[in-house]
Structures are given as structure tokens and as C-alpha cells.
């Protein structure tokens, strides 16, 4: 097992892809009794890779020792539980990943992962379609450590089948030279010095979410009319030349090149920008409120009982405050685990004070989670948002 860990992530992903391809072939071979065969296939796979948990996660989202090429917290997990983990950084895009595994989930065949990490709205889709499994609460006692703000999302109100991996705050980011007083309200954002130099996020739940909060709308009960009002507001700001672009993470480049002076952006990006360019950029949750979203650990419906128990132990491991603090020191997103801040004091006292990673209670109260949308809403709302963005 230790030997397996010494492999590079690339090598491990190759090994894993071979395993999953074999599972697919097993599924194809089973004419007539496909279901039964696939079940055999998946338990066979778990056996062939020992009791390793196959975890698909986003790139650069787990503490990594670049000298030794290891993931320290994963190694400690293996050392303390004897459960090996096959860590795969190949969750690059929600839609792409879903497209890749959807057919197998539908046929109840092993998808090659025991633990996946979809963003809230995609996690909601998996749950709707019955593609995830409920946790055995006894295996995850640390679940109680989840931050209150993240504990009751509408798609999984009791956190029975998802637990946040990292939280993402949506708020205002700005160039401090151009906005010496900071950006704390929508009026500050749409102030004359920012005209034509504002960028908002392509993630509609964050952009429209921040706008709606300023209009006094509750995101956990947002209606179609309210949402469309928010979209109209954005469309008008684009037409009037206030908003320069609707972008993903690239807004960070625009801030550094001076093309943008204020943005609706994400905490993690702004943390990196602010720390790389001392004093030049800042981030804050709007006075009227910001958004909170997250990527979630979730166990696919195709995972065998044995592998599921191991995956649950892994989830429990990362809800231990000391371990969560180690991860946070590397990834700089909002840590969803209570008590991690106290643990961070021991590792890095400066980071323990960071509002980006450990927002104060006052900040947390001011964040809200966008409600889960029905499939029809998802299509209609994103169509309206995309149209307003010029698409």
C-alpha cells in the first residue's frame, strides 16, 4: 500500500482508468443479466484495488507536499485506519464529469469513484436522480462539526448524503487604489470610477445572488420573478456600459491588468490576489449579504457497502478540525469545519485570523445559500442569465 502511494498522481490515474474500463467491459459482456453482472463487477473492482477509496476531486484542492509528491493528510489517514486512498484530481468541470459517468450511473454500473465532489447545484441533480447514497451516520460522528451556515442546504436539508468539502463565498473584490473606501454596497460597485471596469461572475447563483440580496430578496426562497428582476438589472448595467464582462476565474487577470477595478468575485481567488499583490486588492461580503456555496463530498449510488463504509470514514477524517486546518492552510477556501480555526492557530496564526478562511460569525450570518432549482427552472433561469450575458 505504501508502495502505491509513492506513485505519481498521473500514474495512479492511469491505473485507475484501466480498472474502470475493465468494469465497463464487464458490464457490456453481461447480456441479459446486466444488473447482476455489474454488481459483481463493482464488488470485484473494490477487491482488486484492495480497500482503497477512489476519490475524484477538483485539482489543487487538497494539501500536497510538492517535495515528496504526497498528500500528507491522506497518508495520515491511511496510517491511522489502514484504508488506502486512490486520489484522482480529475473532477475538472461539473457538467463534463456528470456527462462522463451519467450513463453508468443510470445502468447501476461502477463509475470508478467511491467519493466525488460536485458543486451544490450539481449535487442537487445527483440527489434528484437518485445517484447518491445516504451516509451511515455512525461512521461520520464528526458531521456535527459542520458550520451552521452550511448545515441545512435545501437540496439536502439534514446533510444526509452530502457534506461540504470547501465553502466558497461570493462578494465584492476591488482595486484599493481606485476604490479607497472599499466596495461594500451595490452603489459602491456601480460608482463612477468603476464605470466600464466591472466584471461579474459567470456563476449565476453568485452574481444574481449578490444583486438579489441587495434588493432584499431571500435566496432560500427566491422566486422566478425575483430572479428575472435581478437578471434585468444586470442586463441594464451591461447595456449602459457599466459591466465590462461576465467571466469565470479569469476576472483575476483583469484585476491585475487594470482592465477591471471592481468585481463580484470569489473569496478563494481574491485571497490569492490579495496575498500576491500586497495592499492592492481587497474582498468583502456586501453589507446587504453575500452568497455561500460549496463543493460536496458525496458517495455515488453505485458504490458497494464495503467501499461506502471506507469512504464515510474518509469523510469523517476530513471533518476532524485538526485535519481540516491542515487542508485549509493549503487551499485557502472557507473551511466548513467548526474548531478548525483553533487548530490553525497551532499551524499558522496569521491564517487563523483570515476572514477568507474563517469568516467571523457576523460575516457568516450575512451569507446565504441559493435554493435548489427544479430542472425546468435550472434551464429557464440559466437561459435568461446567459442571454443577458450576450450569449
Amino acid at each position: 500500500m505504501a508502495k502505491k502511494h509513492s506513485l505519481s498522481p498521473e500514474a495512479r490515474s492511469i491505473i485507475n482508468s484501466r480498472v474502470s474500463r475493465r468494469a465497463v467491459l464487464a458490464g457490456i459482456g453481461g447480456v441479459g443479466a446486466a444488473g447482476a453482472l455489474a454488481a459483481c463487477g463493482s464488488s470485484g473492482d473494490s477487491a482488486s484495488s484492495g480497500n482503497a477509496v477512489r476519490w475524484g476531486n477538483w485539482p489543487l484542492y487538497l494539501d500536497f507536499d510538492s517535495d515528496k509528491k504526497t498528500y500528507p493528510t491522506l497518508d495520515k489517514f491511511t496510517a491511522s485506519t489502514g484504508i488506502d486512498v486512490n486520489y484522482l484530481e480529475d473532477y475538472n468541470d461539473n457538467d463534463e464529469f456528470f456527462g462522463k459517468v451519467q450513463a453508468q450511473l443510470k445502468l447501476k454500473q461502477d463509475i470508478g469513484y467511491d467519493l466525488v465532489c460536485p458543486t451544490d447545484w450539481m449535487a442537487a441533480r445527483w440527489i434528484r436522480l437518485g445517484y447518491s447514497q445516504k451516509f451511515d451516520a455512525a461512521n461520520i460522528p464528526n458531521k456535527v462539526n459542520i458550520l451552521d451556515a452550511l448545515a441545512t442546504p435545501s437540496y439536502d436539508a439534514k446533510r444526509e448524503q452530502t457534506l461540504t468539502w470547501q465553502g466558497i463565498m461570493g462578494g465584492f473584490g476591488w482595486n484599493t487604489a481606485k476604490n479607497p473606501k472599499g466596495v461594500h454596497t451595490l452603489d459602491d460597485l456601480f460608482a463612477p470610477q468603476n464605470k466600464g471596469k466591472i466584471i461579474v461572475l459567470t456563476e449565476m447563483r453568485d452574481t444574481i445572488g449578490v444583486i438579489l440580496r441587495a434588493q432584499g430578496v431571500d435566496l432560500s426562497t427566491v422566486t422566478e420573478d425575483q430572479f428575472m428582476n435581478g437578471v434585468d438589472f444586470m442586463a441594464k448595467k451591461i447595456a449602459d456600459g457599466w459591466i465590462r464582462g461576465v467571466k469565470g476565474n479569469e476576472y483575476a487577470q483583469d484585476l491585475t491588468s487594470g482592465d477591471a477595478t471592481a468585481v463580484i468575485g470569489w473569496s478563494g481567488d481574491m485571497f490569492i490576489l490579495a496575498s500576491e499583490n500586497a495592499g492592492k486588492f481587497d474582498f468583502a461580503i456586501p453589507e446587504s449579504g453575500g452568497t455561500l456555496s460549496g463543493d460536496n463530498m458525496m458517495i455515488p449510488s453505485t458504490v458497494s457497502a464495503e467501499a461506502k463504509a471506507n469512504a464515510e470514514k474518509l469523510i469523517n477524517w476530513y471533518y476532524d478540525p485538526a485535519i481540516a486546518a491542515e487542508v485549509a492552510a493549503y487551499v485557502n477556501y472557507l473551511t466548513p469545519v467548526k474548531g478548525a480555526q483553533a487548530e490553525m492557530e497551532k499551524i499558522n496564526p496569521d491564517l487563523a485570523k483570515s476572514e477568507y478562511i474563517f469568516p467571523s460569525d457576523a460575516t457568516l450570518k450575512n451569507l446565504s445559500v441559493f435554493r435548489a432549482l427544479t430542472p425546468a427552472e435550472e434551464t429557464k433561469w440559466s437561459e435568461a442569465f446567459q442571454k443577458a450575458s450576450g450569449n
Partner: protein
Amino acid sequence: MGKIRTPYLLLLPGFGFLFTFFILPILNLAQTSTQTPVGGGDTGQYEQTFRFQNYIDAFLDNKEQFARSFIYAIIATILALMISYPLAYAIAFKAGKYKNFLLVLVVAPFFTSFLLRTVAWKQILGEEGFVVPTLRSLGIISQSTTLTSTSFAVVMGMTYNFLPFMTLPLYASIDRIDPRTLEASGDLYANAFTTFRKVTLPLSMPGVVAGTLLTFIPAAGDYVNASILGSPNTKMIGNVIESRYFKIVDYPTAAALSFTLMAAILILVTIYIRKAGTEELV
């Protein structure tokens, strides 16, 4: 018998490749384009209902981006032709021993990724690049004028990115012109302009047609330049297709738009080739 079969057998891998990676996807796309959402189904679930109205809806909904795509592509093609013709002419007739070196320079940008080159333009034209501050201090543009996130930046990006596609075919056909035909033209008392109009240009027409097609076709379907250098007001049809497919998860509309774009390009190109009168080229 064996002799007759051999060429066909040799063609098999090519046919197989085209069938798998061209015919099948096209059929699949055609099939997707007339689907409609499954009633009560989840996001991205569609069923075949042969709804050809999808095409009309998709087109009417995005007329603006269609028009913009073709206008930008035409401007970029004309600009690329204006830049490339003298360049190709100079390399073919005037460069002497530097010919190969200059050709390498034309191709050199291709050694880096298309995306990186476009992002580089964003830096060059950005607020803190050297172009904007220089133009501002010279009073050529006003203090509030910016270059990125404008249609100017998108068209410039396209012109630059597709320039070698124009230059290389032009060079190939100009280089083939026998210099003695130019001398003969002079001997017949034609001035430089008449020689160009009556001899050089007609003889280089295959290059002009090939170059304009190789520039125009990818430019019309391009979305990278518009998404990196543009703004919400400069989106092209490629951006719409991307957003329909990945963001809205509306596969039928994305497929219908792709087919409409293909048809529009095909029609324009056919008219162009007819007018240019070089059927033998294509």
C-alpha cells in the same frame, strides 16, 4: 482482381476514420437538433420528437450574434488579406536568401498555443500594457477609451490569429508566378499597376481564394477571441453554441445552431467561389 481492390483497401483506414469521427458525429448532431426536453425529466434529458421548429427558434433567437459573426469574420478576412498580400509578395519576390527565414517567422506564432496568443493580446491591449498608455499620452485616444472588451479587440485578435492561414497559401501561389511574365508585361508597355492588375493578381487568385476561405471559415465559427478579448456586446455565434451546450445544457438548440452555421458558411463559400471563378481549386 487483386490489383483493382488494393487502392480501395488502402483507402479503408481513411474511410473508417472519417466515418467514425465525421459522419457519425454529424448524424448524431442532426438527430439531437430536433429533440425536445423530456416532460418532467431532468436537466439535459431530451427525446426525439422531430421538432424542426428548433431551427427557426434557434436562428430567430440569435440573429444578432449570427450577423456579428459574419461581419467580424469578413472584416478580419479583408484585413488579413491587406496585410498578407504585400507580405507574401515581398517574401516571394524580394526576400532573396531570407525567404525561408521570413517564412519561419510567419509560422513561428503557431509554435505556441492559440489560447496563449490570444491571452497575450489581452495583456498587450490592457490598461497597464504599453499600447493604451502610449496612445493616451499621445492624445490619439481619450483617457477613458479602452481597447480590450471592444469589437476592435475581437476583430484584431481574429486577424492576427488567422494571419498565417492567409499568408501561406498566398505565398505559395505568388511564388509560383514566373517572373518572366512580369517582364513580358513591362515589354508590352504596361505600367506597374497594370502589370499587377492584369498579371500578378489573376495568377495569384488561387492563393487569394484559398487564403480567404481558410481565414473566413474558422473566423466565422470562432469563439475564443470574442470570449477573451470581447464583452457581452461582442459575443459571436460560437459563444452562443458553447453556452447552450455547456451552461444551459440545451443540446438541441446548440446542435441546430451548429447546423445553421454550417449551412450559412457553405452558402456564402459557394457564392464566393462561383464569383471568384476558380472552381478547379476546390
